[in-house]
């Protein structure tokens, strides 16, 4: 029996997405804060908000263990928020640990739901909840004398353990504090479009408000009993009338912090006992806050030209980036790409229509140029949509390093470089797992304990460097540690024991020996630990990387460290390419491998060696000439070296001049792999990395300069 009833099904996906996003934010904040040994007010508020949202949404989904835990964490942060200095106190370590554990618990739950929402059963979080409950009184005990007014509220919070908590950030609008009691305020709340079950959401909001307000009435009344009033709520919003002794800002921030609220409107107050001037002033004061979440973005754009206070700007910017992301089904992106291709083809069919030939249509061509410009722009955007930075994957590694540091008693710092390098979403998804394995291996096996490190004359602090860059159209990612390095003799011994050797021991080169560790069933650590060492690690890593056509190589020096280099060929990545033409065919050469282009002139010597290999002499260096038309068997009229153009290209170790008919121009292209059907032919061996679709819908082949120079 499923935990979720059928009517909830459509919400499950949204819940998963929403919660996952929040948890990612949470982890980021936690890692940063722990590193800085400090938590800014912003971060505290942010964590508070995250917990609040998780509590609300999981309660709505009927996941009591999650909402309980979120509730307790929120309680804990309620105290911290009142007095941020507690984050520096003796309890800070405990708080961070609890937060990380809670975040893990949520993640595990969400993953379980994601895997199979039909059979999902909530796990028990009572241990964690109890631990947090233990910390709360300790935290309170540490409370300094200040802020006495607020303390009772905090106390009430944690003891009643049912009330949601108060505001996280000061309300942005300037609703004046009202004289308490006697006044009935009216607020009209609108829920997000399509958030579903509006009546239940309305009920939740009312329940939340009940703890702070007296005499709550709503229109429609008792929404929870009648799902039919959902449509009314969608249309007219939910009108809440209440009396409160708390300042109005606090109420409005409660509303703001509730889930799925699109906007709310303060409709004024009616005083029925004392008609104070204050109330009169406030009555016509109708506050409309549209789209609570994205309001700060608007703020930012308006205030940007002025020298707004930097801190405020930074905060709005942060909120802005967070809220301007939406999730899109990948299938839709694929479809968008397909349609884009059609548009480009259709556009060139219109503009180059043979029936228009010999006609003078100035205005028509002006319009088609405009259209061309727009489709080009559109294509650029569509293609860049699929690219995501690697920083997300890197972020996850931070977390692993942190956890393992705690558990293994090691002191390792993870440096990440080049997190902004963009790769296609599919590649990005595949990379997280292998990296996790490699980092774990490095932490567990490679880096010595602090004592051993000091004994070996190294700093006690180990360093793992994770870097990514776009080199020659390849994404090169290195994972380097400064640990003990790979022990060649040990690897050989182990491989021999496991029957992995297929030639005499002494015939193995260093590289080959290192490659052995990536064979299935190999693990050098004698004792398998919690984190690694089951002998499945490295071969899984290799398989995963090969899945995206990548290669992995290992470099290691005993006592100095090990470097894993992962090269992912340009598949699906965007590269800057030079388009060259040979007869009717176009080829794309990655700009990064081009050194120079030139035409043959009298100053350049042309040589031919005894085997007939043509060479050109440039600045005293001889470069072999590779005629593209020759190696790819293309019939072209440009065969005289004087007529065509040379492109000096360079790979890791070699250089050569490619001879082509002409240059077509520079263009950014998205690399597409060759169809799987062609995989059994040695296209890669022929120096081709993939293909790309040009603006006019034709296909250009992308040269793989490394392979090309090695094979011709």
């Amino acid at each position, binding site marked *: 029996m499923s935990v979720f009833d059928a009517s909830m099904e459509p919400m499950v996906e949204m819940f998963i997405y929403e919660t996952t996003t929040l948890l990612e934010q949470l982890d980021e904040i936690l890692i940063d804060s722990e590193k800085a040994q400090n938590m800014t007010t912003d971060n505290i508020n942010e964590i508070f908000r995250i917990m609040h949202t998780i509590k609300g949404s999981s309660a709505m989904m009927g996941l009591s263990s999650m909402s309980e835990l979120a509730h307790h964490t929120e309680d804990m942060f309620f105290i911290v928020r009142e007095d941020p200095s507690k984050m520096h106190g003796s309890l800070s370590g405990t708080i961070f640990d609890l937060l990380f554990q809670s975040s893990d618990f949520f993640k595990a739950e969400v993953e379980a739901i994601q895997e199979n929402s039909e059979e999902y059963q909530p796990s028990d979080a009572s241990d964690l909840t109890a631990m947090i409950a233990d910390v709360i009184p300790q935290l309170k005990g540490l409370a300094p004398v200040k802020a006495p007014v607020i303390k009772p509220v905090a106390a009430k919070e944690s003891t009643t353990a049912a009330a949601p908590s108060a505001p996280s950030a000061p309300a942005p609008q300037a609703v004046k504090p009202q004289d308490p009691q006697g006044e009935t305020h009216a607020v009209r709340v609108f829920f997000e479009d399509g958030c579903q079950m509006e009546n239940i959401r309305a009920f939740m909001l009312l329940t939340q408000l009940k703890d702070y307000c007296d005499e709550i009435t709503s229109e429609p009344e008792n929404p929870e009993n009648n799902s039919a009033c959902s449509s009314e709520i969608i249309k007219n919003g939910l009108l809440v009338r209440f009396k409160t002794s708390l300042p109005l800002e606090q109420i409005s921030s409660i509303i703001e912090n509730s889930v799925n609220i699109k906007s709310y409107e303060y409709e004024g107050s009616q005083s029925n006992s004392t008609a104070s001037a204050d109330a009169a002033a406030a009555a016509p004061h109708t506050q409309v806050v549209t789209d609570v979440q994205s309001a700060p973005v608007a703020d930012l754009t308006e205030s940007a030209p002025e020298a707004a206070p930097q801190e405020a700007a930074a905060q709005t910017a942060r909120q802005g980036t967070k809220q301007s992301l939406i999730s899109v089904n990948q299938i839709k992106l694929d479809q968008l790409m*397909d349609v884009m291709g059609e548009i480009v083809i259709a556009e060139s069919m219109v503009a180059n229509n043979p029936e228009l030939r010999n006609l003078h249509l100035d205005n028509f061509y002006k319009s088609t140029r405009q259209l061309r410009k727009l489709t080009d722009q559109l294509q650029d955007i569509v293609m860049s949509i699929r690219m995501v930075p690697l920083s997300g994957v890197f972020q996850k590694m931070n977390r692993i390093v942190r956890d393992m540091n705690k558990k293994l008693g090691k002191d390792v710092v993870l440096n990440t470089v080049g997190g902004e390098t963009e790769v296609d979403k599919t590649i990005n998804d595949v990379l997280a797992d292998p990296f996790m394995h490699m980092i774990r291996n490095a932490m567990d096996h490679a880096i010595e304990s602090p004592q051993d490190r000091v004994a070996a004359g190294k700093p006690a602090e180990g360093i793992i460097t994770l870097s990514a860059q776009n080199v020659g159209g390849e994404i090169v990612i290195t994972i380097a540690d400064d640990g003990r390095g790979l022990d060649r003799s040990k690897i050989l011994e182990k491989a021999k024991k496991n029957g992995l050797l297929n030639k005499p021991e002494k015939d193995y080169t260093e590289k080959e020996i290192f490659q052995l560790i990536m064979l299935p069933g190999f693990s050098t650590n004698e004792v398998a630990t919690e984190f690694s060492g089951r002998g499945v690690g490295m071969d899984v890593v290799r398989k995963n990387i090969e899945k995206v056509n990548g290669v992995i190589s290992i470099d290691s020096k005993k006592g100095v460290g090990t470097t894993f280099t992962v090269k992912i060929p340009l598949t699906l990545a965007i590269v800057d390419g030079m388009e060259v033409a040979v007869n009717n065919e176009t080829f794309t050469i990655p700009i990064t491998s081009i050194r120079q282009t030139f035409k043959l002139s009298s100053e350049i010597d042309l040589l031919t060696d005894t085997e007939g290999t043509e060479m050109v002499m440039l600045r005293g260096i001889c470069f072999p000439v590779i005629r593209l038309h020759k190696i*790819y068997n293309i019939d072209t009229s440009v065969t005289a070296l004087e007529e065509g153009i040379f492109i000096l290209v360079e790979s890791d170790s070699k250089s050569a001049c490619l001879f082509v008919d002409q240059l077509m121009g520079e263009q950014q292209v998205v690399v*597409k792999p*060759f*169809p799987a059907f062609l995989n059994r*032919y040695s296209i890669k061996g022929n120096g081709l990395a993939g*293909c790309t679709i040009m603006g006019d819908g034709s*296909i250009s082949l992308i040269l793989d300069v490394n392979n090309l120079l090695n094979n011709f």
Partner: protein
Amino acid sequence: MSDNATVTTVSALGNDLAGKYLTFYIGNCTYGVELVHVIEIIGIQDATSVPGVPAYIKGIINLRGRIVPVIDVRLKIGEEEKAYDERTCIIVINWQESLVGLIVDSVSEVIDFSADQLSALPEFSNVNTKKYLSSVCKTGNRLVLNLDCEKFLTDDTVSELHG
């Protein structure tokens, strides 16, 4: 450039595709391919040739952003190459989750074959063509040779004799 207006999305015709065959001509012979595999039929378009592949693979085409390899069925079954004309079509079929285009002389029609109409290959048929066929079928006065997509696409050797 393909005439996209003539694109027929055959797979949209109905769910019950079993037993239906799309027939096409190569020279005077009629061949059939199971309709379940067929995605669409498009006009002939210029393919970008790819080095290092057998001659019968004409290259790759761009089908709405997807890169599709195209095979000249004529060359694959050992017929002589023939210049493409306005009747030449590419039948796009779905094979192992990816698309492959088959260049044929012209497309004929969709025929519904009942199981008893299909017969095993006669002994005397040409050995080289035969290895790509799953069954033959007689309809009216024509003999339809049904291609076995699996064999046709995975076998790399080109028949040397004419079918």
